[in-house]
Every structure is written in C-alpha cells, then in structure tokens.
C-alpha cells in the first residue's frame, strides 16, 4: 500500500485532520488587518478582523443625513467610500501573508486607476487587482462568494447595495471559513438593514470650517468615519468617531489630528443615535 493510500485510509477512519505534517508552517495567519490608523486599530483591538465581513456605508453628506424625498429619487447616484477602501486594500497588500489578488466587484466600486498607484509609481496594487463588472445583487453575491473561495484571492471589495441579511451572513461565513476579509461598500440609507457583518462604518464628508472661499493649494479631502457596530466590542468603551484625511503627497488616507473628535461629539443628533443603535 502506498503512502498516499495509507494516509487516505487513516483519514477515512479518523477524519481529515487526523494526519498532519510535522513540517513547520511557512507563516502564521494574521488575525487582524492593521488599518494604519493608530487610534482605530487600538479601539478595535489590533485592527479589522481578518476573517470577517466589514461594511462601509457612505459617503453621506457632512450634515446629519436625513433621507429626504430628493435623496430617495437619487439613490442611483450614491458614492462609495473609495478613499478609505483603497487605503485598506493597500494595507492588506502590504501584509506578507496576503494572497495574490484583490477582486473589485461592481462597476460602482471601481476606483480610478490613479489612486491605485503607490508611492513612486508602485503598480503592485494596480496589477494585482481584477475588476468584475456585474450589476444585480444576485450576481454580485455569486461573484463575491466565488472569489472568497478561491485560494488566489486575498481580499474582496464589493458593491453591497441591495444585500439582505441572508447575503451578508453567507459572505461572513465564507470569509470566516477561508480567513479573508470582505469589504462591502453600501449606500448610507441601508444602515438600518439587518446584517451579519463584523463591523459597520459610516463615512461622511467632513466640511472644513473657515472662510467662505479660500484659494489654497494645501487643503485635503476629509471624511469622518463612525463605527456603527463592532461585534465583541464593549459599547462606549472607546471613541467611535474619527476624522480621516487624504494625504495628497503620499496618496494615502491618514487620521486627521486637527479635527479628531471624541465619543459623544459626533453623535449629537437623534439620527446618529439611531444609527449607533443599529
């Protein structure tokens, strides 16, 4: 009986995990994905959980988001928070254990190629990204599921608009089983939808306070990021709203120290409180 047949016989009798190689593993799998935003990493206990689904809602206007009739008619025109998402993908790519490719699903989630270039014209992220143009939620869910199953894919970024609880649970389970992060971009009015995501974030545009018009070469795009939910995290144990800023020089997103806010400051409206409870 050959070695392979002997192993198969043992596995049939005692289960697949009965035979293990004594060879050292090349690398240990990371449990968390460091976002590079120190305060957020600290609040999350080491970063975003690797084997989980993370939903990013946005981008909402800086004022308190109220779904008025005009917004209802313009749902097709929502803008996904591509800046923070590209930053997270770049961070994930920098991990040594990261698998080869990132899959972007849904045309709305396709970032402009210029932001995928790294410092010094580094094309690694651009060349390791694949873009799947699908429209319907069912097709997007199928592609997300298939990509998460593939060993050659390390990260999935998908347009999650229209996904229901069952869809997010399916993605969460696959992400957990294959130890990969899945990032869903969702429109801001879907924050009330039930979801199985590990974390949920709401991204808003952050208006600058200053003169009415100032011609300047130094202003940077800013967003406020609010953590709506984090499974396993004690409520109100740490700040849950932060300000992010686009670093034009490096093409990265970093924490904005100038307009950092603490818990309570961000959620001063009834709408924000409702979002937190969600």
């Amino acid at each position, binding site marked *: 009986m050959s070695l392979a047949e002997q192993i198969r016989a043992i596995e049939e009798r005692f289960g697949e995990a009965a035979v293990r190689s004594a060879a050292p593993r090349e690398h240990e799998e990371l449990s968390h994905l460091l976002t590079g935003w120190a305060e957020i990493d600290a609040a999350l206990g080491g970063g975003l959980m690797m084997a989980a689904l993370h939903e990013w809602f946005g981008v909402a206007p800086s004022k308190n988001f109220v779904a008025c009739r005009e917004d209802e008619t313009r749902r097709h025109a929502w803008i996904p928070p591509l800046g923070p998402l590209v930053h997270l993908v770049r961070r994930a790519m920098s991990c040594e254990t990261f698998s080869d490719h990132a899959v972007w699903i849904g045309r709305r989630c396709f970032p402009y190629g*210029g932001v995928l270039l790294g410092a010094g014209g580094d*094309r690694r992220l651009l060349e390791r990204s694949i873009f799947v143009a699908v429209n319907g939620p069912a097709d997007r869910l199928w592609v997300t599921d298939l990509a998460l199953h593939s*060993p050659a894919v390390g990260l999935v970024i998908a347009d999650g608009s229209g996904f229901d609880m069952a869809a997010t649970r399916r993605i969460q389970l696959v992400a957990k089983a294959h130890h990969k992060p899945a990032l869903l971009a969702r429109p801001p009015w879907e924050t009330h939808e039930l979801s199985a995501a590990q974390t949920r974030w709401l991204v808003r545009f952050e208006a600058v306070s*200053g003169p009415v018009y*100032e011609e300047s070469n130094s202003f940077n795009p800013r967003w406020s990021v609010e953590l709506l939910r984090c499974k396993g995290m004690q409520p109100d144990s740490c700040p849950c709203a932060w300000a992010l800023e686009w670093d034009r020089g490096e093409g990265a997103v970093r924490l904005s120290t100038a307009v950092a806010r603490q818990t309570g400051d961000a959620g001063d409206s009834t709408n924000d409180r409702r979002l937190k409870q969600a």
Partner: protein
Amino acid sequence: MREIQRTIADSNRPEVCPSAGSAFAVVLVAAERGSQWVAGACEGAAAKGVCLGMSLAHAKALLKGTQIWERPFTPAEDARRLHHLARWAQRFSPVVAADEPDGLLLDMAGCERLFGEDRRMVAMVDASLKKLHLPVRLALAPTVGCAWAVARFAADRIKIVSCDHIREELAPLPVAGLRIDPLFVEALNEVGIERIGALFDLPRQGLACRFGADLLRRLDQATGEVNETITPLRASTPIEATRIFDGAVTNLEAILITARELLFTLILQLEERTCGARTLDVVLQRISAEPARVSIALTYPNRDAQHLWTLLRPKIERTHLGYGVESVSLHASRIGKLSPRQLCFAHVEHGSGNQGDEAAWGELLDRLMDRLGLRAVCAMTVAETHVPEEAFPLQAWSTMQERVPRRGNHDATGNVTRIDRPSQLFEVPEPVQVISLVPDGPPSWIRWRGRECTVRCGCGPERLALPWWEARRGASPSPSIARDYYQVEDDQGRCLWVFRDHATHGWFVHGLWA
C-alpha cells in the same frame, strides 16, 4: 547576455514563375463582389507594370501580346503549401516557422557545425530552393526582424548581416520593413519618415504616443533590444478521445457520463505530455443534423477534471440532442505546458505555491468569464496619456495575452508617475452650473445633481490639453482639446474635480475624492 538569433528569412513565391524575359506571365486572380483583381503576379508581369490590387482587365491591357496564365488566388492552399515547405526546410534547422503569407523563418544558431560558415550555409539553402524552381530572397541576420526586412527590401537578393551592422543595414530600408500596420506606415510617410534610419534619432516617448507602442516593439525587435523567438513547427499527435455508441442515444444522462469518462481519458493524455488544455472542444455527432460543438477556453493551461467538468457540463446540458447522438468526442485543440505537480503530504504542499496559485487564479477567471461573459472580467492597464479618462483603461482579461511584453522591470510604455487624482472618475463628465467671481476664474458656487452649494476652498487651474493630432483626427472621445481643472470643496465637504471646457465654455464635474 542576450542570446543572438541567427535567422534566415526566405521570401518565396510558391507558384512556378517564369522569368522577366519570357513570353508568358502568371497572374493570381481574386474575385470579390463580381470584380476580379490581381492578387499576385510573376516577375515578368510585374516588370510590365502589373501590381497587386489592380483590376484584371487593367493587367490584361498591360500584358497585351503576352500569353497570360490566370490562376485563382487561394490563400488557404498557399498557407498549406508554405507549411509543407517549412517541413521540408527542417533539414537545415530544427527550428523552422512558416511566416505567412510568403516567408520562412529558420533559426540557424548552432548549425554552422553541420554546414560550415555562414556564406556556405546560405548558398546551400539557395541551391536547394533553386532545385525546387522557387525564386527566393535570402537574408541571414542576428534578429528575426532584421532578417525579415533585409530579405524583402534590401537591394541584394542574398544578404548576410553581421551583429555589428544591424542598424547600418536597417537604416536605408523603408519603414514597412518593421512589420507594422500599413496604416502606421502611411502615417509615418505622411510626416516624412520613410526610412527606418529616421526613427533611430526620434524621441521614443513621442513615437509611442503618436504611433503606438507596437512601433517601438518592432523597432526594438529588429535591432535586438527586445528578444524575439520563433515558434517552430512541431509534429504532434492530436489529444482527443472518442466514444461511438451502438445506436442513437437520446438520454442526456448517458451522454454526460460518457463525456466525463472521455474527459478523464483526455486528462491522462495531457498528463503524459505534462500539458494542460487551453481550449477544449466537445463534438456530439447527431443523426440527421450537423454535429453539435461545445467549446471552452481556459485562461491558463489546466487539467483539473473537476474544474473542466464544472465548465463543460452546463454547456453540454444546454445542447440540443436532436434525434439522437451517435458519438461523443473530446479534443484539446490548444494546449499549454504545465509543470509536473509535486505530490503533497497531509494536504501541505511544498515548493509549488506559485503554480497552485496560478491554477486557482485561472480557475476563478474561467468560471467568472464562463458565466458573466468575456468582457465582464477586466484588468486595469496603464496607457501613456495624460487624458484622465484614457490613462487607466479597463481591458478585458481575455485579451490580456496580447499585451506588449515587458522590458526588464518596466513595460514598453515606460514608468508611471503618480499624480494626485480623485478616487472616483465619472465615465462621462457630468454637466454642472457654476458661478465664478471673475470671468473664466475658479467656481465659487455650483449646482450639481440638483443641489446648490457654495465653494469653500479650492485650487487650480490645472490645464490638460489633448495632443493636437488626436484632436485633429477625432480619435479621442474627449469633447474638447483643452480643459482647466479645479479641485474645489463645497459646503457639504465634498471635494470635487471640476473643469471648464474650452470648446463649449461649459463646466463639468469629472470626479471626486470619496
């Protein structure tokens, strides 16, 4: 060190061709839409002014008083004969390729030990071809591109080019010798570039921008800056498996089982050759009907039965069986080399991670393209242009094999510099209403998507203009030849990338930092 290829390019005409002084002429005639035109002519006819594309009546008028042999133009038959000739030429070199429509490429590297020095070797090839009554032009050169150009356009019928004189030999030849698109040849001639030598002194960046990266690739191949290999003819037995039924079978389940068994047989043949299938065809011979053909194309060579069956099964299930199927056959019409797979112990693989990843990647792409279509799966490429909407085009993955090969760590388009650009760029710029405090100045109030907002801060302008030749020939979909871009932040916190169009004086939002 770059491997130097020694190549003979042979420009031949397969038909028996009389000399210029004879009293008859051979003309190949092609018929299209009721008209007959000259698709080929012997040297005697050419000497009297007959040229390709000319109408047959015109050619007959020029050849008045000469006996004309009219032969139909059959490119498929010509190609078949050329391949036969290529097999015959394998007596001179093991690496021979047919360069359609009228050339042969022989890699003569290392053959000097058998046939002696270069001059003697070329003379021997020439003498052998003369015995076949084939008028040929021969060139022996260090690169394929150089040999191709010299064989066709040099003054001498037989020419030997040494390694140190590639540029000197190429310089006086016409740019058509670079094997580029005739449209680009015409465009180069329009601007006064008729000889290859004129291209050596021009800036490469400008050439790529105006005439495409293919021109530079061909130029580099001819001069030896970029390596070019010959894909030789290989005699191979087909990889196929067939099962003939006793009678007509209408049961789909039986056909599926048979097809699956044939697939395993085919995979065994692939394993013996350490190959994987790139294209797999299934043919169902139906009674009283045309054979039903099902085909799958794979991104990477693959011989994983489960994956191939996942792609094949739904296609076979959708096939109409008609009155019954008499036989099922599987055929790997295109194959690719696949390294032998390392056996693993306890589900842990060592040393074959890249191959495993490539296979997994290929399987993912195959399944995506099979279900969503070839155009749904794209990769982002870098184009050498500063026009924002054209700088990073999405290219279907199925066409990515045709990309320009890289030179070292960079591709032929050169390095890319990162410029601050919005994270989202609209495919079509959205019109926006703007109020500026000064004429043609930056916006201070905008109305976009039905909402009015005040601009709180901004910077610009950054003027982007289309190349004049793009604007003149209308090749670009961009609406105008110049735009002034501003980065503005409104009172909602949105950072927009707006521009003023010089042609229409209208304002548009082109993207935003989201």
